């Protein structure tokens, strides 16, 4: 995937549902550079457009024609395979789709009974950056960057910031500290710090948050990014933060990072997939 400079080229997967229309309205909030292209991709069993898909194309064309130079494609087969094939064949700066309500959220039943939605499958694939729109009402007031504090987070911040630099939204950068001390003698105040205290004391998390703010600013985010540091289980704290700050868009790094060893990918928890499965807000996976 290219790092977007300008203009950019988006692959927008369309289905006949309201989610695709909402996703189109959501895309308009991003304020992409003039001259950007958008390929509208519809997938049917036969590879031929049906009436519902055709009228959806018309509606979305009407919504996006003043923002993008539009192209239309119809393909046949499994949407996941088609999107992956298109993304591999051509360089897109962003792949976007809408997620219908009811296809995400935290189920009680075990993970193996949960059938994977298209967005979840794509989140675990190399198709990146991926924008999963879950906006029922188009709104982009608050953006949350989730950061692990590791080196790949830098890439996420840079690419995410470049895509979102013109939104004018309020930006938060969150790191969740779920660490516990092995021994009581190892208790340190950094286990209690909030973001401001961590930055002030230059703890490991504080240094990371300071650097993250610097990266976002240099990459084009105009509003002052607000650092946040929470303590607890990573997934739960991220979801709590999303609820507390009324986040419209969560920006997170992909589980599979360039250059990462396969063994490590197998051993590490796919936090991205977990978040995409559970959060109610839109998600941008870098």
């Amino acid at each position, binding site marked *: 995937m290219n790092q977007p400079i300008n203009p950019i080229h988006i692959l927008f997967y369309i289905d006949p549902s309201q989610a695709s229309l909402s996703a189109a309205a959501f895309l308009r909030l991003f304020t992409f550079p003039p001259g950007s292209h958008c390929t509208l991709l519809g997938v049917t069993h036969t590879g031929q457009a049906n009436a519902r898909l055709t009228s959806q194309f018309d509606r979305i064309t009407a919504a996006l024609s003043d923002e993008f130079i539009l192209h239309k494609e119809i393909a046949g087969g499994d949407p996941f395979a088609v999107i992956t094939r298109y993304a591999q064949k051509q360089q897109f700066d962003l792949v976007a789709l809408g997620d219908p309500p009811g296809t995400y959220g935290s189920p009680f039943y075990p993970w193996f009974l949960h059938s994977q939605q298209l967005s979840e499958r794509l989140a675990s694939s190399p198709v990146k950056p991926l924008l999963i729109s879950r906006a029922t009402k188009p709104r982009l007031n608050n953006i949350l960057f989730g950061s692990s504090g590791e080196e790949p987070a830098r890439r996420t911040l840079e690419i995410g910031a470049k895509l979102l630099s013109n939104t004018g939204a309020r930006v938060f950068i969150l790191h969740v500290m779920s660490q516990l001390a092995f021994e*009581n003698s190892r208790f340190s105040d950094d286990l209690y710090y909030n973001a401001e205290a961590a930055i002030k004391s230059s703890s490991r998390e504080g240094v990371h948050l300071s650097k993250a703010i610097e990266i976002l600013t240099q990459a084009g985010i105009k509003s002052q990014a607000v650092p946040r540091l929470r303590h607890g289980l990573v997934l739960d704290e991220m979801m709590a933060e999303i609820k507390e700050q009324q986040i419209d868009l969560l920006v997170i790094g992909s589980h599979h990072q360039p250059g990462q060893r396969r063994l490590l990918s*197998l*051993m590490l928890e796919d936090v991205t997939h977990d978040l995409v499965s559970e959060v109610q807000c839109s998600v941008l996976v870098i």
Partner: protein
Amino acid sequence: MSRISLWVDWTRRIFLAVASVSLFIFALMLVKNGAAPMAPFIRNKLSVDSPASALGFGWLGAMLALSGSPIAAAALSLQEAGVLSVEETYGMIAGTRLGASFIVLLIGLIYMRRGKSRHLSLGVGLLSLLVTQTTYILVIPLGAGLLTLFSRGGNNAQASIKGIEKTSSVINMLLDPVINIISTYLPEGIILIVGMVCIVFSLRLFDKVIPELDLQRTQLSLLHRLLFRPWVAILIGMAITTLTMSVSVSLALLVPLSVRGYIRRENAIPYVMGANITTFIDTLAAASLIGSAGGLLAVGSQMLATFITALLILLFFRHYERFIERLLELTGENKFTLGVYISLIFLVPFLLIWLG
């Protein structure tokens, strides 16, 4: 390390291993011989006459000994001596897991009183205890069911242990004369105590056999920073504890991997679950060495039940994680709830002994 010093180091370790295992077997035989005449005292005066009361007895014993392994080993000797039935042995061994991590709570309390830490909930010790205790709600009945099932295996189970009994008969042949001499000079109660002390000493000696594991160069050094998949962390916990045979030692091995001495909660929970499975390796070995068919059944059932419970929890792992997190907050952050929790840890085993 040069080749010569490597040879010297390994020779020392082999010598220590042989010495500690020999002492361990000797200690088990001492406990067995010392316990047999004390059966009326243990069963009547101490009221250890049912699986539930044996559970409480093992629980209290582990808390007093600050370790589960010596008490679990003693349970095998008691079973061999005819003091405990197989089911009671199972109960006593299960109890040792519930009381084994008490030491970390004790140390945590001391630090809290000294003002060196504000919240016990921020330590792995309390988490380890809670994970063990919550998993054992399922492990105990499941293991009891497996034990009943395997015991009904009857002749097949007995036949498969014939080889082990041959080894133990050789050991008996070697050690019986020594133990008989000791028995003539020392009363049974003293023999029992000496045996227990020797068990503790032999296990400490065996700890020195474990080679220094250079975990820094492995992916385990990431446990304090990144989130591992739960099944991976369980396997890691199982693997490390197969070598250390102790949950607390397994956790201690991870300390140097992190500059700040931290581990992520999401990794610690499954790691302890895995460690709880293979922590019985030493007890299993002890049962084999003394040829205790009943002991093997009891320990084997326990290990299998712990393993099955871990698999079941994996199906609902996120929910279990949240449950432990809430328990941790509830128990460790408030002095009142911590006090209630500690009281329960002491009260429950006594109740089990009294009512069991």
